[in-house]
């Protein structure tokens, strides 16, 4: 009886020990991965300023990330503007405040939805492509080939992608903002019959350029986040096609979650900064 109890206790102790070991491994992996991603990003960004400057590569990636994302950005933003302005119209109609639909839609789009949705969309499209491309290059030894040819793969492959993304995502965000406002304008004026003069006058009264800049700064940071996360995942991919698939999946998912979390902190931080500078009340 006592022996059985002792054996049982031993097993429980072993199970507790194993749980601690597992937890420690999870923490260790998390910190190892995060640390490696930070070092990777820092080293890659540093190489942008090293010779030879990869101007061609930067323009090539700007075209890929920017130009080829315009269509999905325009489509998404147009319908976001339509849906958002309709819901806000319905809400404000209840309290007879439909003249505030314009500025409310504007604030939502410029400060939050513009940069966040642009970040998420481009992360899914271009970020996924970056992770898959670098992952394939890694498993087919193309990155090793670059290295033995005396070319720094981070400088050739990663730096230009990160820089191009940081430069281009704010521009896409601007396109998003513009088209979404056009969607809102179309719905409110042409469909719901609001007065265009009031619609735009209130927007001019309530919004200032700081709201647009805020969205652009956020978009640039989101560009940095997803390009760094996705290139990092692709760069260290291993294990053939399965490894590339996992790297792409993790790259896109991690960057999307990070974008949403960072957005929340940035909103508060930027608000705090604007209030401190006296630009907002």
């Amino acid at each position: 009886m006592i022996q059985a109890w002792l054996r049982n206790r031993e097993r429980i102790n072993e199970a507790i020990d194993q749980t601690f070991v597992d937890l420690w491994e999870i923490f260790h992996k998390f910190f190892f991965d995060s640390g490696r991603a930070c070092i990777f990003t820092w080293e890659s960004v540093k190489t942008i300023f090293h010779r030879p400057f990869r101007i061609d590569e930067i323009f090539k990636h700007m075209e890929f990330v920017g130009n080829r994302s315009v269509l999905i950005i325009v489509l998404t933003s147009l319908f976001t503007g339509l849906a958002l302005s309709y819901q806000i119209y319905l809400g404000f109609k209840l309290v007879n405040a439909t003249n505030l639909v314009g500025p409310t839609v504007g604030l939502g789009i410029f400060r939050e939805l513009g940069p966040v949705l642009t970040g998420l969309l481009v992360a899914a499209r271009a970020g996924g492509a970056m992770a898959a491309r670098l992952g394939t290059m890694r498993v087919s030894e193309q990155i090793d080939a670059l290295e033995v040819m005396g070319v720094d793969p981070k400088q050739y492959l990663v730096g230009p992608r990160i820089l191009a993304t940081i430069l281009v995502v704010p521009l896409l965000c601007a396109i998003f903002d513009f088209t979404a406002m056009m969607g809102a304008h179309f719905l409110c004026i042409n469909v719901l019959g609001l007065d265009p003069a009031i619609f735009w006058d209130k927007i001019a009264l309530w919004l200032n350029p700081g709201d647009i800049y805020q969205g652009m700064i956020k978009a640039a940071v989101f560009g940095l986040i997803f390009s760094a996360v996705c290139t990092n995942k692709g760069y260290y991919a291993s294990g053939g096609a399965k490894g590339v698939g996992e790297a792409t999946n993790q790259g896109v998912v991690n960057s999307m979650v990070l974008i949403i979390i960072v957005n929340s902190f940035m909103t508060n931080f930027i608000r705090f900064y604007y209030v401190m500078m006296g630009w907002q009340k």
Partner: protein
Amino acid sequence: MSDEVAVRIRDLKKSFDGKDYVLNGMNLDIPRGKVTSIIGFSGTGKSVLLKHILGILKPTSGTIEVLGRDLQKMSMPELIELRTKLGVSFQYSALFDDMTVMENVCFPLREHRFSLGQKQWEEIAARKLGQVGMESKHFHKLPSELSGGMRKRVALARALALDPEILLYDEPTTGLDPILTEVVDDLIHNTHKNHAGSTSVVVSHDLFAAFRLSDYIVMLDKGGVLLAGTQDEFHKSKNELVMKFLSKGLKQG
């Protein structure tokens, strides 16, 4: 003495997890100007050794000297300069799949012979592609449009672009049919003959090709060198593993 040795490895150890050693105290001299084959069963550390010679992997302990220079003591720019003297033909060719054949071969020239300009890069690339038997009608194709044998040729032309002092081949004939295997072996042989003074290192488990091609053969086992010597020395060896490898390998060949 050092002039006769292209790669000198002393007490090289490598462990990825801190417990198991893939390379365990390896000592090896690869002679200059000759064809050396590094053979061994799968998982004996051949590819890991190759990556150490190229400076892609850093050893846990020990020294590696390539062309008389200690890799661990070199700065990054020095390592890059040294790598221009090494040409590598990878197992799966490792051609850049978004570049044409011509662009692939021009790539190392574009990076390291910048002053020559586009016209000369293309002239050199066309010459190198000609040397490995590529016809000009394939120059503007993408790697995905080429057969396995053609890709090997292009990879070799790219490795030759900077006139390297040491040419390394990682499993050059793995996965190829017997006829193509012979073609690639001939290619290695002819390339070595045409580049006087160059050193060739072939990492392979194809014993038949190793015996056909090489002046010097190194057999690895358990992360160390089991036997290094000429063909005669291998045939005279009484080592059980060597005899087993010889009997199986030559039968297959």
